[in-house]
């Protein structure tokens, strides 16, 4: 199982700047292809979200089935930005009560498999687990592990489709294709705000290329005068009629987290 910095649409990438320059230089020589423009948008979004350092936040996840029955999960998430690699993160479960104290530690990477450990409080056991399951549901929700994992530029290839207006905002519509193994998707289409380079909506198409889910990012707030975080993420599964809403609160940046806060010892006492 994996669980990461759900709310971050993009992450640091050392290559980002270089790619941007390369792409810009290429733009002078010839007209930009849709692939180049798609990549350029992804790199710019990544660049704008670089440098946040570390953060903490709390999340309440509400699952609703077709009949309207709901259930909730509560998770606290700590994230450490790693220069030139995926983030490190720790997720601690408070609800449901039977998994209280269960915690995940993840070292995420863009194309290499993530490293991941789970702490099982009843047994006091830390288990290293496989990160193969990208397409499976996270905690029985409509979010797959790959939806909530650290988003690196290299994880996808891109294609710019068109400009559009969404909720009165000018957006880029960009298609992206998973470049990592074991994805449950053939492609995704993202609506990216042209001013702030943040995702407002994402459509997920399954391996058979049928529309599977739509994610809407709502209630963005800006932190440290730079970093935008959505405080509500609403996922609808069109194939099974279920929805999952993530409500984020208590965002804190510059907590002072470091490598020392993301190891197996800390995982065991992370309550």
């Amino acid at each position, binding site marked *: 199982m994996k669980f990461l910095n759900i709310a971050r649409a993009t992450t640091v990438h050392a290559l980002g700047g270089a790619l941007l320059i390369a792409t810009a230089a290429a733009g002078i020589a010839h007209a930009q292809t849709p692939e180049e423009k798609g990549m350029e948008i992804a790199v710019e979004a990544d660049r704008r979200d670089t440098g946040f350092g570390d953060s903490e936040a709390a999340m309440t996840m509400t*699952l609703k*089935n077709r009949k309207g029955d709901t*259930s*909730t999960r509560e998770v606290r998430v700590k994230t450490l930005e790693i220069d030139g690699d995926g983030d490190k993160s720790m997720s601690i479960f408070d*609800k*449901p*009560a*039977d*998994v*209280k*104290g269960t915690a995940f530690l993840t070292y995420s990477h863009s194309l290499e*498999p993530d*490293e991941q*450990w789970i702490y099982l409080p009843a*047994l*006091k*056991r*830390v*288990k*290293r*687990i*496989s*990160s*193969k*399951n990208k*397409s*499976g*549901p996270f*905690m*029985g*929700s409509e979010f797959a592990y790959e939806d909530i994992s650290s988003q690196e530029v290299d994880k996808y290839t891109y294609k710019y489709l068109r400009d559009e207006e969404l909720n009165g905002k000018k957006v880029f519509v960009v298609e992206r294709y998973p470049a990592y*193994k*074991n994805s*449950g998707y053939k492609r995704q289409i993202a609506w990216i705000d042209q001013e702030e380079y943040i995702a407002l909506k994402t459509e997920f198409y399954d391996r058979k290329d049928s529309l599977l889910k739509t994610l809407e990012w709502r209630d963005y707030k800006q932190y440290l005068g730079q970093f935008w975080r959505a405080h509500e993420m609403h996922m609808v599964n069109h194939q099974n009629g279920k929805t999952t809403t993530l409500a984020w609160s208590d965002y804190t940046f510059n907590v002072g987290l470091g*490598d*020392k806060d993301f*190891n*197996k*010892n800390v995982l065991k*006492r992370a*309550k």
Partner: protein
Amino acid sequence: MCSNARSKHSMRTARSAFILFVLPALTSVQAGDWSGNVALESRHFFESTTRSEQHNANLSGYLEAEYYHTFEHDAHNLVVTPFLRLDENDDERTHADLREAAWLFYGDVFELRVGVSKVFWGVTESRHLVDIINQTDNVENIDGEDKLGQPMINFSYFTNEWGTVDFFYMPLFREREFASLEGRPSLPLRVDTDNAVFESSDEEENKDYAIRWSHSFDIWDIGLSHFNGTAREPRLVAGLDGGEPVLIPHYDQIAQTGIDAQATTEDWLWKVEAIAVETDAQDDYGAAVAGFEYTFVGIFESDADLGVIGEYLYDERDESQAFQDDVLVGLRWVWNDEQSTEFLLGAIVDQDGGATSVSLEATRRIGESFKLDVEVRAISGADDDPVLAGAADDDVLQVELGYYF
């Protein structure tokens, strides 16, 4: 609760620890954080009893509550976890324990833990060879997963580069408990825990020590450990208690060196645990478990995962020893649904004796706060097996409903 003098002593110890560490702390805090669970368990045995005092059905229940509090901006914390089980028929299974009563102080690169605590070492599923700090709570379940709280001072030093070094000082030993003759499964003779024999003249006040280095790097998670002190697993020796034939636990002094390692790739987990045990009371011996787990993701176009587990178990001691030359085959079926439904099917086949022990465990959350736990255990072909014969007629269905808070 505990019916013999020695475990009363342990309880006294636990109580002293409670008074020493916990009460002062409790009085200085305003609000604490309680969590835990209470559960009702019903066991039904398929075969008729081997002794007249046994029963075909058994009701039982337990409460485990954890009190947790942090002080001074998380610089230290306190955990207290009392446990109580009441059992309809087995007076030995009715027992109380302090699973934890420990104060933890920590910095960026160290931890200091003082009190009663629980520690897990190892990677394999079928048998926990290197895991030696805590005594097994043998009356809870015969699967060896439940542990008694261990009084200790544990100092831990860690860096991300070099891994973790743990030192343990354990001033008091916890004896293993055994089911009474009314309990099921139970051994054919009463285990006379009141007259346990210790190699150490300090008996259960023998000072035990352990050191462990563990590290994670690349695909590897590795641990090296050394323990010096009283064996957690007693040898059971036939004897007499006032004319009644009984089994007397003998606790040897041992030095156990262990290694555990896991390699994690995207598809496979490869695991190994091995120990070498030096003791004066019997021949030195070694034991090992090695195996793998492979997971099929999203089987049959569903959200479910299917894990296949295979482990080989070796023990150098003679055939009177369990897991001497055994194979575990297991299936882990995880639905990844809202109720966290999971099944774990395991079969341990003794390559020599031919006895096969099968278990099926299923769990599912009900609503937000309840969990249903169903377990079936059966043993076949064990009539001539020196280890399993005692449990051969105790095939059981266990249903447990727990409320979590």
